[in-house]
């Protein structure tokens, strides 16, 4: 098992990139006894410009809190994809939405209809949770159940939100089998 995973959720503000990172970190620390750190970067605008969250999940203590060598970069908007595709090296997986025009990259690219899957799962805003589902399914970075628990904690007392987010997450888990 890999000791430390480095993941970037990127896109534009408002897509729930921080939430995706938070749920992943909570699943790891709260339910699997692992170490997790999440840092973020965004502009002064409340939504619509480049934003990202850096997540590190490890079986040992994490010193540096930003991603230096990503294992996976998830790009949910063109601005983020264009930023990362030319920068990434071999050994990184770049997962992006099929609405984005592809570019050459040294990364291993996976293109999925993430927005479409989110819409079909009943929550067009759930693209972040769909991508988290794909990440968990593809990497085993944390257990599916840990994320389900983290979602239930995050939206405690808000049944509709729990249901919508679980649907999005589980649609992501199934995505590669579609």
């Amino acid at each position, binding site marked *: 098992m890999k000791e430390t995973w480095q993941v970037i959720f990127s896109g534009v503000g408002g897509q729930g990139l921080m939430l995706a990172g*938070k749920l992943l*970190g*909570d699943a790891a*620390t*709260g339910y699997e006894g692992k170490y997790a750190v*999440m840092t973020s*970067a965004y502009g002064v605008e409340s939504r619509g410009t480049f934003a990202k969250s850096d997540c590190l999940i490890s079986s040992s203590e994490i010193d*540096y*809190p930003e991603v230096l060598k990503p294992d996976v970069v998830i790009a949910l908007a063109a601005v983020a994809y264009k930023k990362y595709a030319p920068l990434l090296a071999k050994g990184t997986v770049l997962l992006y939405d099929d609405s984005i025009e592809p570019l050459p990259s040294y990364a291993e690219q996976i293109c999925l209809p993430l927005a479409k899957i989110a819409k079909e799962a009943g929550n067009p805003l759930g693209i972040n949770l769909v991508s988290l589902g794909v990440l968990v399914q593809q990497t085993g970075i944390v257990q599916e159940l840990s994320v389900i628990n983290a979602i239930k904690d995050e939206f405690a007392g808000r049944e509709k939100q729990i249901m919508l987010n679980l649907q999005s997450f589980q649609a992501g888990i199934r995505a590669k089998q579609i």
Partner: protein
Amino acid sequence: MTLKKNIFAMGNEAITEGALAAGARFYAGYPITPSSEIAERSSIRLPQLGGMFVQMEDEIGSIAAVIGASAAGVKSYTATSGPGFSLMQENLGVAVMGEIPCVIVNVQRSGPSTGLATKPAQGDVMQAKWGTHGDHGIIALSPSSVQECYDLTIRAFNLAELYRTPVILLADEIIGHMREGYCPHLPKEIIERKKPLCANRDYKPYDFCGEENEIAPLAAFGSEYITRINGSGHDESGNACGRLDNADKFIRHYHEKFQKNRDDIIETKSFDLQDAEYAIITFGCSVRSGKAALKLARQKGIKVGLLQLVTIWPFPYEQVAKICEQVQGVVVPEMNLGQIQGEIRKVCPTHCSLWGINRVDSQMITPYEILAKLEEAAI
């Protein structure tokens, strides 16, 4: 909600929980990035605990309200960032002069002025000490993890109450906004301010001579005692006093009450320093870069250790001097242009080289930048 041992939370959330655990029940502030989560969480949590949250008109009013609430006997705090901290400086002096316990959280961002509102920096080190005019001491603590955000906020309140002083929690955007697992354990110690036991007619709120730690008891406004807070030079009773010997006595007191208690106030953490030939000395978010660099350098056979300055003010000169004496060179990574390095230089002997690694482009210093300097030095 499931019961979890570790909560995956932001530094700013842990700061708020630390304040509440320390017994703080009053917050007045004006939200500003990257400290706003402290205001947000305080606005929810304080009323749940019978406390009070006030969103003020600006930061000048915020610290004034905090001073007033503390003078009335309630542990009080505010949170801000550079621009707000600048506005607070005048009234910070009032808290110094009136010896009013309070905690001011400054989650540092890129400056000067409005700067880069969402981006980190560590540029307010000197401002925390000298931002308000006149000779005085201050206490400033700097967390480097979410757990330390919680623990050091509790410590900040304890020090504020024990030494009757404003305490600055000098966090930064990286640590304030970073999420990490932390445990909001019950505090090992909660210090309450010393209250007068004398007859009310005999009470002098600034009569520190002969008191333990040279700190006078503090009665609450509205109690049976009369407490005067006076920004002008004042005597033991708080009455305005222009006597030269009185000014000398009190201005020295605002400085010496920290110097005499350095051993209690100052906290540093050492990592792998026993056999170190080189040392990284740093604070706040840059500790994270330093610790990662330390491991990389040790893998390459360079004997490096790290001294984390948890207390920034009063500056840990003795602890720093001891390390500088031991090693051949010291690397000081900081997200400013050398504010901590300047203090280290004061006690660094000539045989010890001193290098700064400074970034002000709002990007965190990477471990590789520190490693490169260490490799260059070790050749």
